[in-house]
C-alpha cells in the first residue's frame, strides 16, 4: 500500500493530536494567523462563532477555510462549503476531525 510522504506526515500528525480539543485549538490558531487577527487564542471561547469575531466578511471566511485546508492537509467537500458550518468553530473542528481521520486515498498497485 503506497502512501505519499505528505499523507504519511498528515496521518502521523493526526495520530499525535486526535482529541477534539486539540483540533479546535489548531482551528483557532489558524483563524488568528490566517487573518492576522489582533487577539489571543484564549480570547476565542470554544462556543464562539465567526460572526462574533471582528465581524468577519465572507472573503475572510474563505481565507480562513483555505488556510484550514492547508493546515490539516484536507479538502473540504464543496457540499460542506456553507457559512453555517464554516462559522461554527466547534462544528468545523468536528468535521475536520472526521475528514482527517478517514483513511487517506492511496495508489494501490495491481
Amino acid at each position, binding site marked *: 500500500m503506497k502512501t505519499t510522504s505528505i499523507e504519511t506526515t498528515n496521518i502521523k500528525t493526526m495520530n499525535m493530536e486526535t482529541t477534539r480539543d486539540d483540533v479546535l485549538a489548531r482551528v483557532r490558531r489558524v483563524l488568528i494567523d490566517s487573518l492576522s487577527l489582533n487577539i489571543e487564542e484564549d480570547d476565542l471561547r470554544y462556543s464562539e462563532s465567526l460572526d462574533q469575531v471582528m465581524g468577519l466578511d*465572507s472573503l475572510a471566511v474563505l481565507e480562513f477555510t483555505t488556510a484550514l485546508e492547508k493546515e490539516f492537509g484536507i479538502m473540504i467537500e464543496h457540499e460542506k462549503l456553507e457559512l453555517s458550518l464554516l462559522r461554527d468553530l466547534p462544528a468545523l473542528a468536528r468535521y475536520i476531525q472526521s475528514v482527517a481521520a478517514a483513511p487517506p486515498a492511496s495508489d494501490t498497485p495491481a
Partner: protein
Amino acid sequence: MRSMFGAIEPPPKSFKMPPKLSEARSSGEFCPAVERPGSRRPFFAVKDFLWLFYLYPFRLTAALLPARLFLMFNRLVDPVCQWLTFSRKRAIRRHLEAAKRFHEIEHDLDQATDGLITNTVRRATDDLILHKLAARGLNCTRIHGLGYLADALARGKGVILLSGHFYAHRIARRHREKLGYPTLSVRNGKPPDAAMGRIGQRFLHQRYVEYLHGVIRDEVLIQDPECTLKIFKRLREGGIVHIYLDAGGTELRASSEAKKPLWLPFLGTLRPFPTGFMQIARLSGCAMIPLLCLGDSRGFTITFDDPANLRHDAGSEEFVTANLPRLVADLESKILKHPREWELWGISERSTYLP
C-alpha cells in the same frame, strides 16, 4: 492629450491618484454622472414611463407573440427612443469625447451614440426572447477559442470568465448553456440608476431585478451574504463563473481591506474596479479567461482569449496590483475597438473624468 501611461497600457504599480483629482472628486467637481449632494430625483422621469411600458403591457404581450415580430417592433421604436433619450445621449457623448482625448476611437462619435441607443433597445427585446425561449432563435455565427475554456476546465479548479458589459453577453450565455457550459453570473441586485424618478426607483426597480432573474436564472447577487462562498463553491465544483470586470457601481463598499476597489484610469475616467473576485481567484487557483461577445440575437460571436497569465507568487494585495491593471487594460482595448457594443458609456456613478 495622451494618457500619461500611453495609449492602451496599464498604469505602473507606483500610480497613485493625484491629490488634485482626489480633492476634485470629493468636492464633486469632476463627477458629472454622480448625483451631487442635495440633488433630488424627479417624481416621475421619462425612464419610468419606458420601464412601466416595457415591464407590463409590452412584456405581457410579447409572451404571446413570435420572436420575429420583435425585430419589426425594434425598427418602429428606435426613432422614438432616439428622441426620448436625449439626456442619456448627452452623457454618452461626453464620455466618448473624454475617452477620445486619451485613446484612438475610429468610429464617428455621433453614429456611435445613436448606435448605442439602438443596441439598448435591441437588447431589451433580446431579453424578452430569452425570457420566452431556451436557446432557439439565437443565431451564434462564430465561436473562437472554445478549446481554451475546455482545457482550463479540465484542470479541475474552475474558470472565471471575465468581461465587460457588452450587449451580447446574455444571449451568448444562454448559447453556452446549450453547448454544455452553464455559467454562474454575478450580478448587482440593486443597480443604481440615476435616470429613474422616485416612482420608478420605488416601484419598478425591484420588478426589473426580478424580471432579469427570469432571464439570467443561474446567478448570485452581490448583496447575498454568501455570494463569495457560492462563487468559490462553483469553482471548486469545476464550474464556470462570469464576472463583469467593469462593475464599479456604488455597491462597492469595502467591508475589508481585501475587498477595497482599485482605482484605475479607464476610458478617460478614473474608475473603481472590484477586487474581491481577484482574491477568490487567488484562493481557488482557478483560471481566468477574458471573454468577448458581440452582436445580438440575429447574429452574435463569442471569443474566449487564452487564460490570463496570473502572477500567483504574490501576497493578497500584490496579486491584485500585479494582475488587475493588465486585465483592465485588455478590457479597455476591446471596448475601444467596439465602442457601440459596450453599454456603460455615460454610466459611471463613481468615476471621475481625467483632466
